[in-house]
């Protein structure tokens, strides 16, 4: 419907004189919508009907009962308990946790790398900006699946056999074709608990101090060195908790057994390959987002800040960054979502994420519709939740216009 047609409809209750009803925009709109709805309903009905008939004929079970059936396949990374007799539902849950692990790791690495390279592209230093440009133009023009394969098969696949593990820190860190083995951190007594409590107290304290400092600055104009205070608190308080809890931490490296290394923290090759590929690939996009955001801050803003007597650091911290972040954050969130969605490529190298474990369940149980529905619901839920949060953020951050 054209914009204007609707306006006329708003003003006139009935058809204008001399216009046949089927030429009246109001009726046309109603009829068109009814037809569209009818077509969609008919299509949906035919799909449902066909599916029911096909499932009946192929003797495929329906419903979500299969989720409680025993899975009977192994998963090579189980951050939550996955016993031998665990159900399909449990297997998918393990997959969800694994997706979260790779997404969080990827987002952290991609953000750090992306900001460094994005700022690097704007650097005055010719070498730094050339390297950053080359990085962005190379990485973002090569399919991410190819990059995953490269890391998994061409780099990690060539790592030595467990018997001749490489030892970057001899006796503590081992690298072989089964993965990377880091020493395990074991806290004795209450020191682990103390550390955790200290961390939480520090975070709450920083939040409170931040609120107080903002209010004070609004009222009196006095600034508070929040960054240094926060850094101090976040180091000191957990350490204090750790000390009060008994000061007890042992590092337990992996041990060599007959065929492989046991113990320690094991990072499987597929996790490393996936994290590396996703984060370096996404970093090239984040770099462009960051660059665009910084360039979007008008030059007059920097000049005005300097003429007000702000130092370089203050200009950056108080004037440029807050305005750049307003431009950067929405596309940055999009990139985080893309990274999460791209983590589903794990299935190609057998990292047991949501799609991988779900794929095995799909093949074993044959219940394609239910499994795909679970996948889509989880990814869609994440996307919708993120956009809701983003919209709220945008409303808060938007420039208040006249």
């Amino acid at each position: 419907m054209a914009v204007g047609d609707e306006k006329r409809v708003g003003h006139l209750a009935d058809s204008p004189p001399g216009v046949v009803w089927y030429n009246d925009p109001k009726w046309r709109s109603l009829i068109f919508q009814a037809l569209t709805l009818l077509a969609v309903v008919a299509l949906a009905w035919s799909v449902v009907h066909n599916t029911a008939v096909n499932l009946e004929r192929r003797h495929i079970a329906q419903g979500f009962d299969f989720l409680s059936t025993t899975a009977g396949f192994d998963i090579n990374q189980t951050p939550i308990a996955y016993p031998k007799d665990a159900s399909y539902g449990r297997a998918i849950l393990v997959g969800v946790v694994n997706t979260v692990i790779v997404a969080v790791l990827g987002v952290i690495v991609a953000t750090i790398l992306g900001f460094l390279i994005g700022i690097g592209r704007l650097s005055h230093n010719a070498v730094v900006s050339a390297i950053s440009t080359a990085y962005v133009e190379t990485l973002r023009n090569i399919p991410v699946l190819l990059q995953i394969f490269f890391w998994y098969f061409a780099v990690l696949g060539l790592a030595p056999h467990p018997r001749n593990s490489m030892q970057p820190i001899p006796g503590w860190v081992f690298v072989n074709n089964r993965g990377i083995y880091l020493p395990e951190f074991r806290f004795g007594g209450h020191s682990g608990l103390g550390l955790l409590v200290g961390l939480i107290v520090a975070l709450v304290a920083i939040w409170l101090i931040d609120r107080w400092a903002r209010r004070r600055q609004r009222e009196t104009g006095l600034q508070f060195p929040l960054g240094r205070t926060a850094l101090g608190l976040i180091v000191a308080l957990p350490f204090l908790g750790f000390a009060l809890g008994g000061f007890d931490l042992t590092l337990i490296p992996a041990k060599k057994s007959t065929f492989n290394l046991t113990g320690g923290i094991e990072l499987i090759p597929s996790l490393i390959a996936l994290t590396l590929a996703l984060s370096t690939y996404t970093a090239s996009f984040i770099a462009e987002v960051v660059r665009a955001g910084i360039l979007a801050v008008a030059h007059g803003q920097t000049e005005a800040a300097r003429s007000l007597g702000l130092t370089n650091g203050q200009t950056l911290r108080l004037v440029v960054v807050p305005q750049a972040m307003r431009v950067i954050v929405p596309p940055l969130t999009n990139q985080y979502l893309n990274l999460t969605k791209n983590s589903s490529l794990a299935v190609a190298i057998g990292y047991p994420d949501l799609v991988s474990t779900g794929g095995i369940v799909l093949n074993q149980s044959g219940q394609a519709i239910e499994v795909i529905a679970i996948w889509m619901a989880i990814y869609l839920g994440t996307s919708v939740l993120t956009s809701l949060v983003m919209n709220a953020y945008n409303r808060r951050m938007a420039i208040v216009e006249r």
Partner: protein
Amino acid sequence: MSAIDTSSVFVRAEMAEARAAPISTTGLVGWVRTRLFGSVFDGLLTLLGMAIAASVIWSIFDFAVVRAVWTGEDGGVCRTPTAGACWPYVTAYWKQFLFGRYPAEERWRAILVFAVFFGLLAPLALPKIPFKRLNALLFFVGMPIFAYVMLCGGWFGLEPVETTMWGGLLVTLVVAVTGIVCSLPLGILLALGRRSKMPIVRTLSVVFIEFWRGVPMITVLFMAANMLPLFMPDNVDVDKLLRALIGVTIFTAAYLAETVRGGLQAIPKGQYEGAMALGLGYWQTMGLIIMPQALKLVIPGIVNSFISLFKDTTLVLIVSIFDLLGMIQSSRSDPVWAAPSTGTTGYLVAAATFWIFCFGMSRYSMWLERRLATGHKR
């Protein structure tokens, strides 16, 4: 006129002492001083960056040229511990990289399709070449039909070729081009639907767009591969490649719809009002006034969507359709050629191919953006 009395005024009799010349900021030396070694930190950064760049470039050159194996009958020559790129593997397999398992005696058909494709694309993409409208019609309507007839066969005495035999770059291009040609009209309709004032149409469009944008492409492909046959009446058998194409088209249409919507929103309201004042109906307004302007604005966005689609075509290998990457993935473990460096060589070839296509398209899009900037920005 008398001479000026110099006793009461000061006149400088000798030159002032010359100041040291300012540090040069022009020329090569100046450039090095300001752009490379502006400060100690800057200098360290420069040296570190140069070291990193040199090591990366050298390791690629070392692998691809210095340590590379150039000739050989099988993978044996590449199985030495120091061997770099295994080029004989690429020589042996390059036809499969291009055409997959497409029968050797029918490959001329695929080559002809490639030729027609690029032959029509070049004059379409370059400015100042006449007959754009005819060219576009041939490219978007004629070419797909021609490609379908030539590649599938079965008509005009051409040998039928199952799509399961297709592969390599051929499939990559087929998926990418079909994806964009079919999803563009769908995307435009969805964008119009989302901007519509009719609540039912708008809601349906929003739900459709947001649904497909919210899920990963891999689940869409799984859905197309596993669920589409269930959706069809029993006697309809959908080809595997066609299923993937449907999935790719729907997925891309949702993204294109958002791109086009961006263009629609950028058109000032006066354009709609002007069209209405001239007495144009909805489709006339859209087709003659709004769309030509909106699409021009979003051409770079469309090219960007096409680049992502082109990269995403690699995902079809997960539902066992062998595109370029799929062919490399399946041939690198061929026992005849299996060697530690075979996979890396294959990935290098694929990366270079994809990079050339994608980088070329992104440069084209940037150039187009500059060319189309007709000074409407206020």
